[in-house]
């Protein structure tokens, strides 16, 4: 079987608790910096303040990105899109005249769950309808398309924690099929009390900084952020003499069909997704430089991922970057895709933050220190509520 055509990645934008742009994020990762703290934008009555990886409201340096008419998730998406477009060398006015699609993953950004509004509603009050209007104005893909005057396909993927990864896979498909010249693909999500309480209720939040793949891991820390990749056709890339930072070689997806929130113990959906992606790009394990694992720090997730990595990608270095960012839900796959490309470019991966003590029940361990990597491709993978598993394989540099 011949491989499917690669799709160039010409620009990346990324922000999260680790940094205000991709370069800052990578500096933090390679410096081993991480600072989860109790949330500052909301409070709760839990007896313990579960740490989160929060972006301070003033974090986006450009004040023109801050808008009161949309949700913070949409603001985050805009900031990353702007960085990505600039990084790809596109002029906004020129881009408008192309067939440009937008495909963005989110969870919180698509949920109508404004607590202030609902509290007033259920107490028979007269809540301000601005909360609803703001929600209706905040579909992340729609907000990006409107801001940049883009009129191609527009899609917000709501596949829980694999949304960002799915969005990149779908965006690459739009390029390959000729539906679009350019696609802005990624994910965005903000911290909120609903998900904070929700993950605590499921008893999969850690009261201390998360420790993916560690023997003492107790769960995840939530985070927030966004990342957008500029994908474009090879022909367009060549015609404007734009070099690619990497290429999307393939995408694989599989569903566990097992449980609403827990992964299948045998990792069947993840195995299926990895196998599908490897087959589609016609690469073998020898080509793989590293794997950016989902690595939430929950006992179940890390056990299943370790099992699958040991079986399908033995001896390949892997890490979780959630120790630096927290679990950013619908943005996670996109942020981790951005990190994966940056690490492929750098030829090294940072230490898997939070990992100290190997778990005797796991057959693999992530990298404990900054590690040089060889190989022409890298894998980033996401597991999600609903049993979704999504995998994107990136190839190095120009194609």
């Amino acid at each position, binding site marked *: 079987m011949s491989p499917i055509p690669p799709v160039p990645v010409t620009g990346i934008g990324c922000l999260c608790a680790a940094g205000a742009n991709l370069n800052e994020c990578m500096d933090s990762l390679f410096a081993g910096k991480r600072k989860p703290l109790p949330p500052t934008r909301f409070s709760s009555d839990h007896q313990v303040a579960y740490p989160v990886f929060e972006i301070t409201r003033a974090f986006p340096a450009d004040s023109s990105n801050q808008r009161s008419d949309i949700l913070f998730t949409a603001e985050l998406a805009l900031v990353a899109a702007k960085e990505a477009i600039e990084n790809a060398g596109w002029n906004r006015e020129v881009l408008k005249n192309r067939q440009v699609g937008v495909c963005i993953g989110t969870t919180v950004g698509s949920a109508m769950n404004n607590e202030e509004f609902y509290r007033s509603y259920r107490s028979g009050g007269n809540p301000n309808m601005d909360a609803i209007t703001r929600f209706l104005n905040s579909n992340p893909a729609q907000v990006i398309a409107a801001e940049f005057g883009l009129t191609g396909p527009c899609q917000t993927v709501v596949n829980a924690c694999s949304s960002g990864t799915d969005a990149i896979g779908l965006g690459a498909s739009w390029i390959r099929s000729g539906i679009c010249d350019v696609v802005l693909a990624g994910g965005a999500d903000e911290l909120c009390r609903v998900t904070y309480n929700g993950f605590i209720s499921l008893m999969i939040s850690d009261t201390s900084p998360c420790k993916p793949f560690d023997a003492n891991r107790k769960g995840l820390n939530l985070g927030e952020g966004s990342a957008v990749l500029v994908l474009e056709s090879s022909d367009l890339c060549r015609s404007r003499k734009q070099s690619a930072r990497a290429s999307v070689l393939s995408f694989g997806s599989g569903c566990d069909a097992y449980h609403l929130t827990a992964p299948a113990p045998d990792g069947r959906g993840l195995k299926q997704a990895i196998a599908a992606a490897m087959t589609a790009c016609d690469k073998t394990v020898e080509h793989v430089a590293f794997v950016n694992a989902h690595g939430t720090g929950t006992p179940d997730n890390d056990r299943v991922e370790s099992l699958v990595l040991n079986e399908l990608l033995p001896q390949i270095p892997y890490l979780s970057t959630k120790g630096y960012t927290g679990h950013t839900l619908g943005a996670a796959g996109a942020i981790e895709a951005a990190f994966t490309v940056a690490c492929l470019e750098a030829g090294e991966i940072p230490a898997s933050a939070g990992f100290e003590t190997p778990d005797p029940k796991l057959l693999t361990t992530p990298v404990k220190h900054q590690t040089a990597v060889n190989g022409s491709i890298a894998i980033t993978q996401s597991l999600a*509520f609903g049993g979704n598993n999504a995998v994107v394989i990136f190839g190095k540099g120009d194609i």
Partner: protein
Amino acid sequence: MRAAIEGIGVVGGFGCGVEKLRRALICGKCTPKMIPVTTRNQTAELPVYLCDTSSLESFINKRALRRVDHYSKLAVLGSFLALEDAGVLQDDHLNLAIVVATGYGASLTTFSFLDTAFDDGDACASPTLFSNSVHNAAAAHISILLKARGPNLTVSQFEMSVPSALLAACRLLEDKVVDAVLFGGVDEYCGVLGYCWQRFFGPDSAVSMKPLEWNNQSAIAGEGSAFFFLTRDEGNKPKYGFVTDIQIGHIEKHESQSQLGGFLFLGADGQKSSGIHYARCIQQGTHAAVYTPLYGSFPVGFAIDMAIAAVSVREGTIYATPRHAGKNSGLKIIWNEQHLDSKRIYCLKFSCKGEYGMISITAK
């Protein structure tokens, strides 16, 4: 782009299944239920097209459904009806992909989750309600019940959710990732939505939908689902024809539809904010029909129009627009049932923000 439509499952205010939909089309009428909604200390009756999902128990035992909420039940029922209609319900669905469109997701469960935290404190928030509140819970339940392990995708783009998700479903078939996709749209009504409806449109909101009167706010809230069993075009004649094109874009780049050479099914649903776009873009004299008065206004109602188009293709009949859909002097509205012959049907939907989606369905 071609996808064969082999089965349809619909759930709406008109009932469940293709036959109930067909009967509603023939009689041209569906009566909404009246639901009390209180705003600013005043209670008013709001008409809503609500769905009954009790027939789901003929497919799945009650015990297996005990943690499945109304939103997911709507989707599961639509899915099982579509598979049954296609004659594949009992087949192995291991490689089946599931693609779901939703505008608002599991709204009722989301607010019920908030209730648990408000009533008993954050530490007592319900994990079951949280798990079911995510937009992709419906797709997850379908996959678990069918043991479908193909790609599983949920898309939320408000009124554009259906064409956007259908694009993804067709790509899975075109790219030969899978041989079949269960595609559909689902949205539910909830009390908060009714409250917002009253606040936005006032206590005098419509009791009868007149979607052809573009400047008249006459939308009536609805809920429902429509699912389709789609396969690749392998040269066989599918039960309901083919999806042959999906166009998604913005009114700024929308071309007039006068030269389409087929019938236009308008997704106009009595929302004044989107009605103005139909008025602006559809050429005078275009042959058009509108069926939203049979199922109401909700983000993925477009999927019901798609089902009506597919049923029309199967029957070789264009059903009459319901008589009370309003007056429109500019278009050639199909007021009487007529023969479809070999023409194509275009389902067109505008969002209030000027985005549009157009899905073409044809017999060949």
